């Protein structure tokens, strides 16, 4: 395998896993969002993530094998993607979710932009397609950050707590694109009246297959049917 092909495959797997795990996380909101419109929005964003994941993983290998047959150590997603969408496992917090989506979609937008400009033709096609969708995801999260950050005392406090909790995971997420990512995210935080957390703890390891326990729970749910009935079809 050429150096380019090898580098592209590592990148496709990382991006594909980010999108796949994010899709599974976002799907937890289906039928539980604060309003019907938001329920539809989150389901659609999850669907976009799943679509991007399928294209990326199908290019990197066999999409079903990759999605359903790997253990947690085989996954290359960043830790942010697998975190619960609330302060603790099992929580589902809307402000937390929008903060998570802001951080994730800003990084995905930049990575897909780079993929679209790359030398690998197939990967560039996927990147060009996914850029357009990420733009919508980032916009959606931005609109909510403005409303929550500048909303009530409670909404502001909760979204600031989410930001403080998730910010450390932004380091691994933005490796190599940190400055461009900050240029996208910091103005949103400023306009939302939120305090950009200081850079301290930098948890990582996801890209090397060292994950939090949250991924194991997520995979158990995502893979159980396929593992019980290998090759099952609808």
């Amino acid at each position, binding site marked *: 395998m050429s150096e380019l092909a090898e580098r592209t495959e590592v990148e496709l797997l990382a991006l594909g896993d980010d999108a796949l795990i994010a899709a599974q996380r976002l799907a937890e909101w289906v039928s539980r969002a604060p309003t019907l*419109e*938001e329920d*539809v*929005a989150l*389901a*659609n*964003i999850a*669907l*976009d*993530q*799943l*679509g*991007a994941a*399928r*294209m990326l993983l199908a290019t990197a290998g066999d999409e079903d094998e990759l999605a359903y047959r790997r253990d947690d150590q085989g996954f290359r997603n960043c830790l942010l993607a697998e975190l619960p969408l609330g302060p603790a496992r099992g929580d589902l917090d809307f402000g937390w979710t929008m903060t998570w989506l802001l951080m994730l979609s800003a990084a995905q937008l930049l990575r897909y932009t780079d993929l679209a400009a790359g030398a690998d*033709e*197939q990967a*560039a*096609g*996927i990147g*060009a*397609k*996914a850029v*357009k*969708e990420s733009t*919508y995801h980032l*916009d*959606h999260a931005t*609109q909510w950050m403005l409303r929550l950050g500048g909303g009530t005392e409670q909404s502001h406090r909760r979204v600031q707590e989410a930001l403080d909790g998730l910010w450390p995971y932004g380091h691994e997420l933005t490796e190599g694109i940190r400055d461009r990512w900050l240029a996208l995210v910091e103005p949103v935080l400023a306009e939302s009246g939120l305090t950009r957390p200081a850079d301290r703890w930098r948890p990582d390891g996801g890209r090397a297959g060292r994950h939090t326990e949250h991924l194991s729970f997520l995979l158990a749910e995502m893979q159980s049917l396929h593992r019980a009935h290998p090759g099952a079809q609808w």
Partner: protein
Amino acid sequence: MTAQTEIARIAGAVPDPELRVVTIGELGIVRGAELADGRVTVTITPTYSGCPAMDAIRDDIRAALAGAGFADVEVKTVLSPAWSTDMITESGWAALERTGIAAPGASGTPACPRCAHAHGGQPTPVLQISRYASTPCQSLWSCRSCLEPFNAIKKL
């Protein structure tokens, strides 16, 4: 009509599984149709990468061509160039508008399909209710004049 043109016509005339009023040809989903050595290859492109209608579209193309006597059909998917709303044809936009689905509008604000031709063609004020609607490619709006909700195709 040559077989090649016939194949392109049949594939393009397949209705979109979610927006039944327009064909996949009008939506710009069909990129090409070829006949070589008795084998038909139809090339399509997804509107959104996670579009759940793609499998149904593939099946519908095969069924439509099988009905016209073309049994050996391969449906290929290409991503490049990425689909954009600019690929929807004029007749496609007209069919969408007739059914109450608005175009995104040059400025990003759609015109209410019910009021578009009233008020001397002056656009009525509209309000975005949700950036996402019944399909990933639509957003939900409300007209401040007739007070009716409507979907608009999102600019992509």
